């Protein structure tokens, strides 16, 4: 058992995958708490879909090296656009997001479908390729992680006030739209960092699930942040180990990124189940 968790990662390509996954898990866990508090799961989903055509165009223009720059351009545009939509309260925000995310996603799929290796490319863009990440990918993720730390530590109190009481924040003189832009940009950067490893679709789970699980376990913001970060890292590690062991030991091919997500979801399900049992038990004890 213990060997399953450690032994595979002596191989360099798996060690790189582990570093990338754990780094990403921590990053997504922490930023996910912001997503949770602001109830931005849908906006995050919209950003992930909007990034997709950027990934494709980047790849078409300059191959693998073009993916991150392409994603970055789209992510920055998406974050700015969505902040603007939220700021002009006249349009129905949900509908506008839905239209944009499907439109961008459609553009991405149309572009990919012109490729000969259509299916393989599409799969890679959507679900990532964590076993082929290189040092550049790790550096990108690390840079985003450092940026996320700076934003969450430096602007933590302002983002907290804005999430809890937007009217109060506005009355205190804070520029809500500017704060939201920073937050949305951060989410967009996390999506960009995750593109190579887990793809544009699965990153939403890595952002939302650890934070949601942590929220079930605690009412304290500090604890939620720590647990979400820890869970993100643990899920990434366990997921990779399980995926590797399944294919090596049992001949079952499990996609690494998706296995990580499933491990995280399993944690969420376990915690929910545990809490239901505890509730029933307390009721019975009364």
């Amino acid at each position, binding site marked *: 058992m213990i060997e399953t968790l450690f032994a595979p990662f002596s191989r360099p390509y798996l060690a790189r995958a582990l570093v990338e996954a754990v780094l990403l898990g921590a990053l997504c866990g922490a930023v996910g708490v912001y997503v949770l*508090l602001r109830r931005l799961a849908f906006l995050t989903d919209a950003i992930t879909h909007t990034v997709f055509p950027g990934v494709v165009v980047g790849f078409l223009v300059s191959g693998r090296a073009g993916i991150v720059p392409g994603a970055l351009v789209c992510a920055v545009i998406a974050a700015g656009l969505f902040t603007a939509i939220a700021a002009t309260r006249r349009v129905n925000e949900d509908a506008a997001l839905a239209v944009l995310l499907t439109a961008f996603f459609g553009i991405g799929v149309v572009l990919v479908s012109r490729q000969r290796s259509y299916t393989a490319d599409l799969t890679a863009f959507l679900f990532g390729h964590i076993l082929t990440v290189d040092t550049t990918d790790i550096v990108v993720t690390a840079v985003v992680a450092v940026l996320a730390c700076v934003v969450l530590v*430096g*602007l933590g*109190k*302002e983002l*907290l*006030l804005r*999430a*809890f*009481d937007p*009217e*109060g924040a*506005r*009355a*205190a*003189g804070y520029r809500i739209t500017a704060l939201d832009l920073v937050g949305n940009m951060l989410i967009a950067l996390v999506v960009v960092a995750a593109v190579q490893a887990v793809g544009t679709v699965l990153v939403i789970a890595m952002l939302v699930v650890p934070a949601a699980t942590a*929220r079930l376990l*605690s*009412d*304290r*913001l500090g604890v*939620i942040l720590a647990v979400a970060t820890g869970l993100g890292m643990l899920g990434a590690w366990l997921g990779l180990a399980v995926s590797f062991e399944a294919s090596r030991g049992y001949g079952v091919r499990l996609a690494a990124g998706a296995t990580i997500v499933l491990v995280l979801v399993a944690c969420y399900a376990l915690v929910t189940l545990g809490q239901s049992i505890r509730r029933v038990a307390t009721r019975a004890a009364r």
Partner: protein
Amino acid sequence: MSKPTGPPAIVFDHATIAYGRTAALERVHGTVRAGEIVALVGPNGAGKSTLIKAVLGLVPVASGSVTVLDRRPAEARRQVAYVPQADTLDPDFPVSVAQVVLMGRYRRVGWLRPPGRVDREAAAAALAAVGLEHRAADRFGLLSGGQRQRVLLARAIAAQPAVLMLDEPFNGVDAVSQEALLGAIRNLTARGAAVVVSTHDLGLAQVSCDGVCLLNRRQFGFGPPDDVLTPDTLRAAYGGAALELGDRGLILAHS
């Protein structure tokens, strides 16, 4: 009650406040002085919240002017504290009572820095001023509506404001919390703060406030409670919602 009044804190000079082209509130004219509590009264939709937002610089003044501490409203925000209605805030939000009160210090702390010991002490003192120091570690949403309202007042007190704006703080609040709120507000005015509070409670406006501003889309009276809260002006402001009760009596039906 007569007490020496301070310098003008908020001056409305024939102010009309509009969202887009439609005027939400017209011709508000009067002064709130330092050390005074002024009640904003009027039926639902009268424009009480709009007037509060105008003082906070969140809605534009279309004509006339609103002056806060001798400046334009948006420029005075650092010395103005706002207390929203507690039930507009998410009770599931994972934030402790102490954290909420500490938010009142954020503007003083400034960007990029964490609150320090002085801020924590000010927040603790503010929480004690509303009688809830024993609930500091609890989650905000676990408190009763009245207690949450007191926590939000504590947050405003922690900011040490010169002007305090409260939006319907007594709505659905139990008697204990109402007394605690009023006590803490009086402490603030005794130290020279100007307080504006919107309320449906005319009795409270009459007994506990130094001035009353009676609104329904426009101003119907602004002055001492005895001058404004007369059957004639109330009848004019509330229209069909005012029911006569003989001589000097009048009751107001809430729609």
